[in-house]
């Protein structure tokens, strides 16, 4: 039991993610979390503005149930399956982050410098969250998938489009991490 409470190593977590994908495929569906963003648009009436949202969203209800489960799973994991271990980051990462003004790297899942209300409720903090979310939502649909649909499922199926998309994920991620984060956060 105790080993469950510790962070799980990559060689346990990775195969378990494969299991999630295989289960969904076995259930006749597919592993793709970003599709739910489109479904939410349709439910919200976006079909009035674009054909792209005019589809039978009820056929995708199962995926919203997966999302509901994921939310519950997140709650269960932090409430019952955690021993409060800090994240064993590379010390270099921790020191790089302190230069950017992040002083509690690894003590929680997310930096309070971005997600705590005191920072969220500033113009800059709110802009960061909205821009980040917008880029994720816009980019994932433009690319036709996210980490689950392209990086895990698409690569597992040896699809070229997914490899191109994953290369794009890294181009964007590297630009943000190496050039833009220092501009946004340097104290």
């Amino acid at each position, binding site marked *: 039991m105790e080993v469950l409470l510790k962070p799980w190593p*990559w*060689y346990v*977590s*990775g195969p378990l993610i494969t299991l*999630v994908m295989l289960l969904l495929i076995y259930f*006749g569906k597919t592993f793709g*979390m970003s599709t739910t963003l489109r479904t*939410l648009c349709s439910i919200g009436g976006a079909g009035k503005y*674009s054909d*792209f949202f005019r589809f039978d969203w009820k056929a995708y209800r199962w*995926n919203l*149930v*997966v999302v*509901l*489960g*994921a*939310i*519950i*799973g*997140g709650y269960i994991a*932090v409430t019952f*399956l955690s021993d409060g271990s800090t994240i064993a*980051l*590379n010390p*270099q*990462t921790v020191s790089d982050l302190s230069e950017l003004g992040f002083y509690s790297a*690894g003590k929680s899942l*997310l*930096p309070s410098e*971005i997600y705590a209300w005191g920072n969220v409720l500033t113009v800059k903090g709110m802009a*960061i*969250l*909205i821009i*980040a*979310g917008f*880029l*994720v*939502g*816009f980019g*994932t649909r433009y*690319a*036709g*998938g*996210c980490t*689950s649909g392209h990086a*895990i*499922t698409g690569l*597992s*199926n040896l699809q070229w*489009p*997914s490899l191109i*998309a994953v290369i*794009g994920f*890294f*181009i*964007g*991620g*590297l630009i*943000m*991490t190496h050039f833009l984060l220092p501009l946004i956060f340097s104290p």
Partner: protein
Amino acid sequence: MKILKFLLVGIFFGIVLVKSEAVSWYRIYEMFKFQSFHMYGIIGSAVCLGILFIWLFKVFGVKNIEGNRISLVPKDSGFVRYLAGGTVFGLGWALAGACPGPLYVLFGTGVISMLIVIAAAVFGTFVYGVLKSKLPH
């Protein structure tokens, strides 16, 4: 039971993502700095096993729960949309420290401000849908 199995898979997925620390902003930052093998190990092992099992499914003609042979729908061909869309996504991934799955999971861990990111992601998807015909694919 039909819908319950999806709830259970979702719960399992949420737990795995938290326990693997794949939902951590710090782990994503560390990954893009190439300072740890952790995230590469997770994604790499997931993909390697995925390749193996999907190949086995095809070779043995494994059927899904509905009795149909398992086959994955290939993505449309194209280049610009995957590279450009992927790059936009990557910028957001590294800033938010989370992709769509983790956005939901992190909300579940009690980070209420994640709702703002989720709402903005829904809006981003909406804007893509409206501009779709004007974008290069």
